[in-house]
């Protein structure tokens, strides 16, 4: 019997959708599944977690002024891993995970593979993309504790009803010296839905021509519950903030649908979105490389198509 832990990421007290695929991946025969919740909300998420096969929920209780401190959270988490004899730890490769899982791996001196889209629990291997998404690498981990950062949306969630108990793990004494949080969660321009976790992304490139035209994308996005992304050209031109950039040097995303408007489909842009479920391109140039590497394309002006799409969606 192996103990596997998943670190649950909450959003305003709710279990983020992306956790469910991760739990599905961590589930196996002869595995006891622990969920670690670093906020005092275990009770409110119990029903969801047990419907996906969690049998123990560990609520890690931190001192109030340490709750946002990633270094403290990592320290408390590794105490819990040791206490519950966890041999494999799963966390989401989200913004929070990127500032948290490597801290744990470093403190434990344990192996970690980030951005995994598959994990083989028996073989102790993880699969991830390398070289700008051109290569799939299979990486074997060895050691006492193995850590995996899972790409959001990479795995389809499947339910498996269990009953879970809740344990409290007091970590109010844990304190990380050296790093203090002065301000947490400031936003430049909140892009409503988080790119990395969105099911649908509508992205604009040079073809959007200016900052105002991005409102066309935001309006459409609000109708289909999508996040808005951008190419580097749109970011470098100052039309949208860098946080919206998709690609090699931007966000890596795997939505179910990626709608590219006025984006040519450079290698570097593809590095961030080629693992999307479906790619739809709207581009005026029939020679744009994205047209030969997508599922559907429209050879038209995106500034004409998108407003019509929004209007039809609006009228039901």
């Amino acid at each position: 019997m192996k103990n596997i832990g998943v670190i649950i990421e909450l959003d305003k007290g709710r279990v983020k959708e992306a956790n469910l695929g991760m739990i599905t991946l961590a589930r196996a025969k002869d595995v006891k599944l622990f969920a670690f919740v670093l906020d005092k909300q275990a009770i409110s998420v119990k029903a969801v977690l047990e419907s996906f096969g969690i049998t123990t929920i560990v609520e890690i209780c931190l001192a109030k002024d340490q709750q946002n401190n990633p270094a403290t959270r990592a320290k408390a988490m590794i105490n819990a891993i040791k206490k519950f004899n966890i041999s494999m730890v799963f966390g989401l490769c989200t913004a929070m995970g990127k500032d948290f899982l490597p801290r744990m791996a470093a403190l434990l001196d344990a192996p970690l593979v980030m951005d995994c889209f598959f994990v083989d629990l028996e073989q102790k291997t993880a699969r991830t993309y390398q070289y700008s998404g051109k290569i799939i690498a299979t990486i074997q981990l060895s050691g006492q504790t193995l850590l995996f950062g899972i790409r959001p949306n990479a795995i389809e969630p499947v339910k498996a009803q269990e009953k879970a108990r809740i344990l409290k793990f007091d970590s109010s004494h844990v304190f990380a010296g050296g790093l203090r949080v002065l301000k947490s969660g400031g936003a430049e321009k909140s892009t409503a839905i988080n790119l990395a976790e969105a099911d649908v992304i509508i992205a604009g490139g040079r073809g959007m021509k200016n900052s105002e035209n991005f409102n066309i994308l935001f309006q459409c996005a609000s109708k289909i519950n999508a996040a808005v992304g951008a190419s580097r050209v749109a970011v470098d031109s100052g039309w949208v903030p860098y946080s919206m950039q998709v690609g090699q040097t931007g966000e890596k995303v795997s939505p179910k649908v990626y709608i590219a408007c006025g984006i040519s489909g450079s290698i570097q842009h593809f590095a961030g979105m080629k693992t999307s479920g479906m790619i739809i391109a709207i581009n005026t140039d029939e020679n744009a490389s994205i047209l030969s590497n997508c599922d559907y394309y429209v050879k038209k002006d995106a500034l004409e198509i998108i407003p019509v799409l929004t209007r039809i969606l609006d009228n039901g």
Partner: protein
Amino acid sequence: MQIYVCIKHVPDSAANISIIGKNSIDENVNFLLNPYDEHALTEAARIKNNLPGTEVIAVCLGKADAEKTLRSALAMGADRGILIAKEKNYDSRVTALALKAAIEHDGKPGLIFTGKESIDEGGMQTMFRIGALFDFPVATNVVKLDIEADRAVVVCELSGGITHTYEMSLPCVMGTGRGLNTPRYPTFPDVVKSKKKPVQKIAFTDLNIKASLAGMRVIELKPLYQARQPKEIKGDATVVAKELIRILKQEAKVL
């Protein structure tokens, strides 16, 4: 103060990557300085400008040809370089051990920079491992940095444009992100000067890094082939929009 900037020699993102054997790539492609490391070098040069007496040292664990990348770092403002020469590739755990050993052997770090990730393997963890080995605080994806007498105040960007502001005691380790600065590309005189700057070579094996059970090993590399079969949606804007809605509803099932 001594600032160490850890840099990586990586294949150009536009290069075609082909696989040799089961788990290596053909390294006969153009290699260059990891793009995120350019921000680290630019920031180190900026700090040096404001703090006279600062020395910037670029450190690279790489094969012999990585000297070219180290020279680019010198052209971008580093005063000297250290090349830890390796013959094969190591995981980020061993990489951090090697960088730490070389830095410790060389001097007294006031700040250590890395890029927030490398564009080849994208491990996203070297800075944290270096920090843990030195017991220095760490922040990653730093997009704003102020160094004060005894502390660093950094703004780190998470996705969705959300930022956190941390205060760290010095020395500390930082993984630099793209918003931090605009890389200062070298001028011709910079390149000429860089050729004369000292580069010290150390053999990886001289660092006496102990073998460990814990680690990561690439066992297989495969090209990502995508068999997308593009289909054109034709018609006027209304027809196209209706068809898009049908696809989103019936095929992608996201509406």
